[in-house]
């Protein structure tokens, strides 16, 4: 049985000198007396590619917001890149759920991506900012659309632009909230292969509400439903998406090393 915080066994097999990028130590967060996360401990080593899964309202986005320092834990400590989340913010790239953005906002793809180059101290964007933004746009394969209106793009294209925006500050950690919501299977594969390439240079944490994305790409699956459980994908048998989606979903359920109440995949 693996309990929250039992992470040491897993990290040991990946090498004893793993650097830690993100660590949560007995973190609790409640919203209006309603517990969202309870006594959550998590260690994310450098160059990790983890997928956070769990039901809606299970606390996945809360977990990301805690790591970004957008909200404060009621209890416990969070360390990111050796300091507090607030101080580590400019070394993290964040892609929010795209549903909360105004899709009629007058902006080109380049305008949106340049937001990733915003700085506290600068008034205007420099030529370097522009070239970094263009190279981020190139990374996600959107160069032909750089000067096209953001609101004319398809869902999958918008997601890619938002990934580029998260990328163009050259972060050490990339946090993505539902990057594959409302996109077709092909686009999803496409996005994950981009992320897989990026993973060579940075730690990636992807939130998803369904297990379909626990694909061949990610190294670890983090289940969040008030409590938190970690599954290394190497331990799972079938690593094909289909297997997990249709067949192995049951396997994950029964093979589940989580005994505490409150965690279920129904």
């Amino acid at each position, binding site marked *: 049985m693996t309990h929250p915080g039992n992470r040491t066994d897993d990290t040991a097999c990946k090498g004893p000198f793993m650097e830690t990028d993100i660590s949560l130590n007995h973190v609790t967060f409640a919203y209006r007396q309603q517990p969202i996360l309870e006594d959550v401990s998590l260690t994310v080593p450098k160059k990790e590619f983890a997928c956070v899964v769990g039901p809606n309202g299970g606390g996945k986005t809360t977990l990301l917001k805690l790591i970004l320092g*957008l909200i404060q834990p009621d209890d416990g400590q969070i360390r990111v890149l050796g300091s507090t989340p607030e101080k580590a*913010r400019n070394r993290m790239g964040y892609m929010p759920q795209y549903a909360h953005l*105004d899709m009629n*906002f*007058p902006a080109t793809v380049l*305008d949106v991506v340049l937001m990733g180059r915003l700085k506290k101290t600068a008034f205007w964007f420099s030529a370097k900012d522009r070239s970094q933004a263009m190279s981020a746009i190139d990374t996600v394969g959107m160069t032909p659309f750089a000067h096209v209106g953001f609101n004319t793009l398809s869902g999958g294209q918008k997601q890619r632009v938002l990934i580029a925006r998260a990328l163009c500050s050259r972060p050490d950690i990339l946090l993505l909230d539902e990057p594959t919501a409302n996109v077709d299977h092909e686009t999803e594969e496409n996005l994950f292969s981009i992320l897989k390439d990026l993973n060579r240079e940075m730690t990636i944490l992807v939130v998803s509400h369904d297990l379909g994305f626990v694909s061949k790409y990610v190294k670890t699956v983090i289940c969040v439903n008030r409590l938190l459980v970690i599954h290394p994908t190497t331990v799972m048998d079938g690593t094909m998406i289909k297997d997990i989606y249709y067949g192995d979903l049951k396997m994950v359920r029964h093979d589940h090393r989580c005994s505490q109440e409150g965690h279920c995949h129904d």
Partner: protein
Amino acid sequence: MIEFFQAVLDPDNRFLVYALGMGGLASIAFGIIGTFVTIKRISYLAGAISHSVFGGIGLALYLQVGQGITWFDPILGAVLAAVIAAVAVGLVSIHAKEREDTIIGTLWAVGMACGILFIDKTPGYFSLSSYLFGDILLISQKDLLFVIGLDLVIVGVVVLFFNQFFGVCFDTEFALLRGINTTFFYLFLLVLTALTVVLLVRIVGIVLVIALLTIPPAIAGFYARRLWEMMLYSVLLCAAFTWAGLGISYQMSLSSGPTIIVLCGITYLVLMALNRVVLKLRHGSF
């Protein structure tokens, strides 16, 4: 229409030149701030601010006429009330979350009611309609200077902090993560909105402010691809509407504020309908 141009050229009709100048200059502030109000979807906040302005005007009249404090003129009362209301409304919208609507609606009504109570207690008779619906024909040289000053401030601030405002309007959370003080810029935007609203009150009055602040940007939004384009189109549209509205109201002996608003509204509705038709034709579903 020729009569109107002749009237403008007549040196006895100075007020018409002032009115046209005011309309054109004010359009710069309206177009820019109106664009922010529209894309940030805070027209409800702008409405609350504009109605609170009436409280400030009432207080100023009471102090000036009723209590003999002569330096406290209505424009000072309006500016003070607008800035206080902007900060209050901004803080409410950041912190109150689900109660936001109710609190802002209350500020809106109470601000207005206070104004009327103050005026009740002020000796003499005041025509409320010029405050409520505007009277661009009463514009003075002082008002023109005020507009030029505000235009300079708004253009300067927006040119300097364009990217910060863009970030705060498009995705506040992301801007915060990039180290931008989003609360400051949001409140700053509301204060600029408040000052613009005070200006608007002279032209179209408290009740019609929101229309002139949001309709030109809404039309500009049909055609603009980028934020600065939307601002430019809004400024031009706003100037066109005020000038055309003034001409029509002069010609037909109508109130200038409502004429401007009706012109804006009809243009917006017609263009929206046209756009729908064009979209449907393009997708072949007609």
